[in-house]
């Protein structure tokens, strides 16, 4: 039954896309890993043969820095942003840099996960927890377990200066009363490394240079399924979560294609593609991929987006002072 609904949905979406008959070029700035970005873009272009999508990939903070610089130069390049977190999107929206897409169909989604003004749209759920190498002597179950000196010495996390998900993770964790900034201070003092994005952490832990790390769920679970010697843990305190939102920029030169891209991502087939790539989809009707626990068993740490936005610079400066980058 559900399969039938899905295929009807798919047919419907495809036909609306075909009806809109969008053409031209579209520039996507994204923080998705290269491989996933290419797959997303290829699937969209297959559904919309008239559109050519060019994309640039970098960590959320870096891609945003590039976007800001181009804005300042008076030559913004991007039409669509697909980045890690909604905090950044809220900031852009407040500055009037986003274009709303009032016709977007978000009826299938739980209220609260999408922007009520339809300026940005959640595309998936990416949680950050603990990853460890299967040859590691300790199997951490909580963040507290990471403060053991020998664990910290072999621990690595993505830097909030390079990863949007890592930024949210830092904000969420430092808000947990029993952890707080003291937790990060301990990690730094005991020699934990903060470097680059999630890809670098996966490489270090899978390659055995580090044994423990903070990592986004899909990378660990997906690579473990391919045979990489890693295991993902949902820590007892909970995981932080980002929704990898997509948004259209107010300066877009091709609003029709940009809207089609957003529609594609939040459509059922788009969400199925997300699940096929190994992500937890945002759409409640799409089944999570292999290796994930049932969604309602995942404990997500609360965090205050408005506060996160105002404290962003201060938080990053504090982190840099501790970890030297």
């Amino acid at each position, binding site marked *: 039954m559900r399969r039938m609904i899905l295929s009807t949905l798919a047919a419907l979406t495809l036909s609306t896309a075909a009806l809109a008959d969008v053409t031209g070029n579209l*520039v996507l700035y994204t923080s998705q*890993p*290269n491989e996933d970005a290419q797959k997303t873009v290829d699937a969209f272009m297959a559904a919309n043969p008239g559109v050519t999508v*060019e994309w*640039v*990939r*970098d*960590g959320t*903070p*870096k891609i*945003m*820095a*590039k*976007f*800001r*610089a*181009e804005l*300042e*130069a*008076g*030559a913004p*390049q991007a039409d669509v942003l697909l980045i890690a977190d909604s905090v950044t999107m809220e900031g852009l929206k407040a500055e009037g840099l986003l274009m709303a897409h009032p016709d977007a169909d978000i009826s299938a989604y739980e209220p609260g996960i999408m922007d009520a003004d339809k300026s940005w749209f959640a595309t998936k759920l990416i949680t950050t927890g603990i990853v460890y*190498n299967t*040859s*590691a002597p300790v199997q951490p179950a909580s963040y507290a377990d990471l403060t053991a000196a020998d664990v910290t010495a*072999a621990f*690595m996390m993505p830097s909030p*200066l*390079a990863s949007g998900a890592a930024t949210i993770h830092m904000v969420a964790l430092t808000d947990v009363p029993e952890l707080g900034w003291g937790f990060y201070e301990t990690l730094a003092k005991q*020699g934990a*490394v903060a*470097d*680059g*994005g*999630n*890809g*670098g*952490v*996966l*490489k*270090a832990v*899978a*390659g*055995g*240079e*580090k*044994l423990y790390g903070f990592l986004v769920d899909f990378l660990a679970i997906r690579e473990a399924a*391919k045979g*990489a*010697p890693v295991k993902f843990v949902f820590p007892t305190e909970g995981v932080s979560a980002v929704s990898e939102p997509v948004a259209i920029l107010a300066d877009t030169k091709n609003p029709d294609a940009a809207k089609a891209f957003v529609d594609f991502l939040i459509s059922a087939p788009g969400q199925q593609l997300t699940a096929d790539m190994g992500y937890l989809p945002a759409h409640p009707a799409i089944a999570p991929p292999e290796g994930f626990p049932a969604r309602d068993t995942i404990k997500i740490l609360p965090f205050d987006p408005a506060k996160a936005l105002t404290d962003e*610079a201060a938080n*990053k400066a504090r982190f*840099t*002072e501790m*970890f*030297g*980058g």
Partner: protein
Amino acid sequence: MSDDARAAPDRWSGLRRLLGEPLLLALILLAALVLFVLPLGSVGRLALFATGGGSDAFVAALSSRSVQRALWHSLESSALAATLAAVVGGALGLLIGLSDLRGRVALSFAILMLIMIPPHVTAIAWMQMLGPSSVLLQALGMAPAPGTTNPLYSREGVIGLLALQQVPIVYLTMRAALRTLPRDLAEAARVNGAGPGRLLIRVILPLMAPAMLAGFALAFVSALGNFGVPALLGIPGRYVTLPVLMWQRLASSGPSVLVDMAVLAVLIGVLAVVAVSAQMRLTRAWSVALIGPPQQPLRLTLGRARRFVEVGLWAVLALVVLAPMLAMLATALVPTYGVRLSLQTATLDHFREVIFNQVVTVRAFANSAGLSIVAGAVVAGLALALGALQRGPFGGSARAVTTLAEIAYAVPGLVISVAFIIAFLKPLPGLGVSIYGTHWIILGAYLAAFLALGLKPVGVAYAALDPALEDAARVSGAAFWRRLWRIDAPLIAPAAASGAVLVMLTAWNEVTLSSILWARGTETLGTVIFNYEDGGYSTLASAMSIVSVLATLALMVLLHRVGRNLPPGIIPWRD
């Protein structure tokens, strides 16, 4: 009527004269304004006078924990690396320059490889050679245990690789100085009964002290500006240097931190310029005027030890140049990072991916090739013009431009790129378009940073030019452009060409300048390799590095061919 007829040729000749040297000077000054004065000036202006700048900003920067740390790391790593490089490079210079070793050109070529392979590629290669997932060490059964941090992710790792990269700089300075050593002195010492050891300690070393010092200072400045090594080894090793700190802040925060960046840029820029001028002053104070024309260098016979020295040198060079490249090749051949290399697992997929599939890498190869060729050609043209102007009535202005170029060369690359962003981020006045995000801004930064490289060989060639040629042409009525085109250009061409190839090599290999100037469509080879490694895609980074090193080798062989008939001292590895 007849008056007019007589006046007309004068007026025309006046105009013609104006269209000669003055026109060229105007063009050169315009170029200097755009390449040096505007960018470096706007960094200074922003750091000193902008809101948020000024002395308070310097105090704030210097009292920040991370800036203090980075500044100390920069000074410490550059000083130690330069010292190591001075010892090793100096010894190599003496050994190869003064002895009767065979294959000196080949040895020099191999030593030069240390600097011709770009820092980020060297760092990637060494990381893969020594890490726990080293394909090479695994095959030998010598890989460190899992969970061992890569030994290169440390202060020692950064300093060691920096030193290794600076060895050729000291080596070249030593070789050049040895070439000017008059033979009479050494022969006088030997006639008076000094053995080789005494000759070395009492005669040669004191005379070589200024060259050693110059080599040390050049190595120091070059290490200070290095980005690839401390970025890839120092960030995971918690050993962040000032250029890396600047890159981190700028790459993560964008233009909002430009004032802070300008402050740091001034800090490190001043440091570099002070180091270079101190060296120049000391060299002048220490140097002794040597009498006698440069001669064939001394050839001390090593006797039976020669074979062992040769074998030893080649073995060490193979270990530090070839082995890391093989480790990187091994990583490029495995299906995913961490898998052991064997005949069954080896695959060319990553090469196929970077050469044919990934749009970005294909674009990067094209961009880097185009940018380095254009930069090389423009530098050759500028060097030719500056040399010609230096002889004429505008010599002073031309020398001032040369000095600016040398300052820009001494200043770390990241300072140049920050300067270009500050100067050219806003749309150009009058035109309403910004060159930020285009190839032009990267080309401009290349020209500013590498012009000095191309000026050196051309300066040597101009100095060797017989002034009688120029006078003869002038007397025969050849105007300035004609003289430049028919007399100077053909005679200077070989030197200009080798300068151009040096610039091309440097631009092809660089990552520091484009690391913050790249945008969609203007990705360079360096940035793509760096971003792949930074993002965790080591296999792709390795495959791209291998291709780029092969291209570098091809360029070096080309330079070897082009420079066959040049005077000594222009092609670095030739005798």
